[in-house]
């Protein structure tokens, strides 16, 4: 961009002309360099408000919780913790849940961040199952009157006995024992339930049994029974977080951790849940989940996805037929 500022090519330039041009080039490079560094370091020059006391980061967690979102949130939050210019965090939650492992990574990094600065969660439509699990360390959970939270438990398929497989070195290498599988599922569910008891046991007015029904509560009910804390929108949560951080004037920065393009997609099939990592998936792009912390009614059935994507199939077929018909 600097070269555009230099005078057009001429043959008879003087020495002083050269110096001026060099100075301009160097100056332009310094400006450009500083701009690039600033952009890379994520300080967020854009939208800066010189009068603000600090910054509230709004981290949006959207869609099914399957990798790489756990990765992304963990590094995003560790960066936020290390960034002195960010004083509080609000999680913008909208997820039906997902796989246990990324959920626990997210839970732990949210818990760490919450230790260090005010952190609130603001539920949009739904933050159930894994979504609920991870946001529990938030100081306050904000819900809209009809947001859905809860679904504490595990969506799993009934373990069934399978005939023996010859080859593996041990009986549990492939296949397992029904009783062991049941116990594993129960343990996974218990980890979730006990985390609720530990994190919000003092606020939730339901017994452990009532929590473990995996019921989903609407916002208005959840603030009543302690599954959430306040009715309010994202702005309320941000203002409250800023207040907690002692900021009179604040600015917000938005951080996205959900993968662009909305992938992967979660779907129910007759054999269980799958995550689909490509728009035109091959077998390698479809990953089954035996056990997932999801609120199943919020997950579309694969046939519904078919119906949506099928709209362009007849078009192609028609075109093919027509072009075929045109040629005798």
């Amino acid at each position, binding site marked *: 961009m*600097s*070269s555009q500022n*230099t005078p057009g*090519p001429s*043959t008879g*330039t003087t020495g002083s*002309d*050269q110096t001026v*041009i*060099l100075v*301009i*080039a*160097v100056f*332009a*490079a*310094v400006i450009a*360099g*500083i701009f690039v*560094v600033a952009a*890379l*370091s*994520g300080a967020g020059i854009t939208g800066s408000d010189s009068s603000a006391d600090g910054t509230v980061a709004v981290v949006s967690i959207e869609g099914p919780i399957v990798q790489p979102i756990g990765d992304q949130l963990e590094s995003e939050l*560790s*960066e936020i*913790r*290390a960034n002195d210019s960010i004083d509080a965090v609000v999680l913008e939650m909208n997820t039906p849940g997902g796989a246990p492992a990324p959920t626990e990574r997210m839970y*732990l990094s949210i*818990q*760490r961040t919450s*230790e260090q600065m005010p952190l609130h969660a603001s539920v949009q439509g739904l933050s159930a199952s894994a979504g609920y699990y991870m946001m529990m360390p938030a100081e306050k959970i904000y819900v809209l009157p009809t947001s859905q939270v809860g679904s504490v438990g595990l*969506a*799993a*398929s*009934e373990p*069934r*006995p*399978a*005939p023996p497989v010859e080859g593996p070195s041990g009986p549990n290498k492939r*296949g397992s024992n029904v*009783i*062991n599988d*049941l*116990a594993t*599922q129960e*343990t996974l569910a*218990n*980890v979730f339930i*006990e*985390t609720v008891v*530990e994190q919000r046991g003092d606020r939730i007015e339901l017994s452990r*049994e009532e929590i*473990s*029904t995996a019921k989903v509560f609407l916002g208005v009910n959840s603030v009543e029974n302690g599954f959430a804390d306040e009715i309010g929108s994202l702005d309320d949560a941000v203002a409250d977080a800023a207040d907690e951080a002692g900021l009179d004037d604040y600015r917000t920065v938005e951080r996205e951790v959900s993968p662009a393009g909305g992938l992967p997609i979660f779907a*129910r*099939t*007759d*054999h*269980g849940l799958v995550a689909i990592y490509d728009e035109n998936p091959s077998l390698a792009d479809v990953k089954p989940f*035996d056990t997932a912390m999801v609120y*199943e009614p919020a997950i579309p059935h694969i046939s519904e996805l078919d119906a949506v994507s099928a709209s362009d199939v007849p078009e192609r077929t028609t075109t093919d037929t027509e072009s075929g018909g045109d040629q005798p």
Partner: protein
Amino acid sequence: MNRLQKTAAVAFLVTFVAVVAVGGVVSAVTGGDGNTAELPEVENPQYDADRVSPDTSPGTANIQMDSSATGETIVVSVGGGVSERDIEPLVNTLIEAGAEVNVVSKGSPGPAIGPIGPGPQPPRARPPAPQPSGGEEESTLSEELPEADAFMSIGVSSYRDEDIDAITEFIESDGRTLVAVNPQQEFAPDSGYAELYSELGAYTESGYVYNLAENDLNYQRIFAEPAGSSMLTEGVDRVVFDTATPVRAASSDERMEPIDGSVLSTTRAETDLPVLVRDGDVALVGDTGFLTPENTQRADNDVFVGNVADFLVGGDRTSGGPDDGATGRTEQTNDTAEDVVTVEVAPDGENVFAPRVTEIEPGTTVRFEWKSGGHNLVPERQQPEDHPWSGVEEIKDEGFVHEYTFEEESAHRFVSEPYQDEGMVGVIVVGNPEPP
């Protein structure tokens, strides 16, 4: 490009790279982007195996029969969702005792979706090929049952009319019968079960029983305890039922009831509706999974399955063996008639008599058990009108019991006066009384 432009371009590039490099290093060192900050400490005491892991230690599966079964023929009718492996522990026990076991496959596979949700279907041993439907061939049961000593049905989703006729005939000749169904059963269309239940005098209630507080590895795997006399439940402390539907009988000798804290899925209220009832020679179980190889290791399921085997071979069928086919029906004998039947007064706090209608043979004692207080028991109309039974006029508390033996053929309509307006009415029919 002249020299000047080159110089300018090179100067720009060199300076740009230098600024970016220095700036990047400074930014990293000052912590703009790095992970050098110490991790805040967090506490998660709930991540503790002792706190979250259930006890998986397998029990023993020691199935034993007391009786010999030599010469007995047991017909087992299995549904499409039940493999032979699922019933193996019982079948093996019967074979070991010398019985002949004929497994016939009936009906189409039950609905694939259970209360838990769709499950993976690993390769399973399939039951014998289902008979082609709509053919002109005889129903297998109508061939097998006349010669059988006992009949067990497990997980069958529907019965055809010919099958029902064969089973009816079998029950009427006092053949020992055990029917096991599961909660999915009710979702099967056109199952023929209503007819079968009216023959059994026992029926299922919709929904399934669960227990979130105390269960065997899953909320649907409930524990049930014996109640009433003990035959199927002899030596049984607790049995695990996986996915059980409540069952009821017009009258019952023996029941298995879910432990305290068990809840019915449809009402989400605590229930003590039984999941097994036995009335004389017929029994109805609301679960089809209690006898799988895995589950016979849990609780006292092994003892229970042994008792089931004894029950099946212990019958005294009035027309066992090949039938001449002349009548097909045999007279019902009175030697197995019930001596005592129970009528519950306001079970679960509901203002009803359960069962509402009780049909008994003369000489039977009816035992009225007050399950909630605040009720009396007054005959409203009797046939004959001067029948000596006068009920219990005083309002009684929970736990009160009134017994009366009805010696002659009669009919009685009785009420709990405080709740008469709510329709708390019951009927007892003794034998075949003359119409009024």
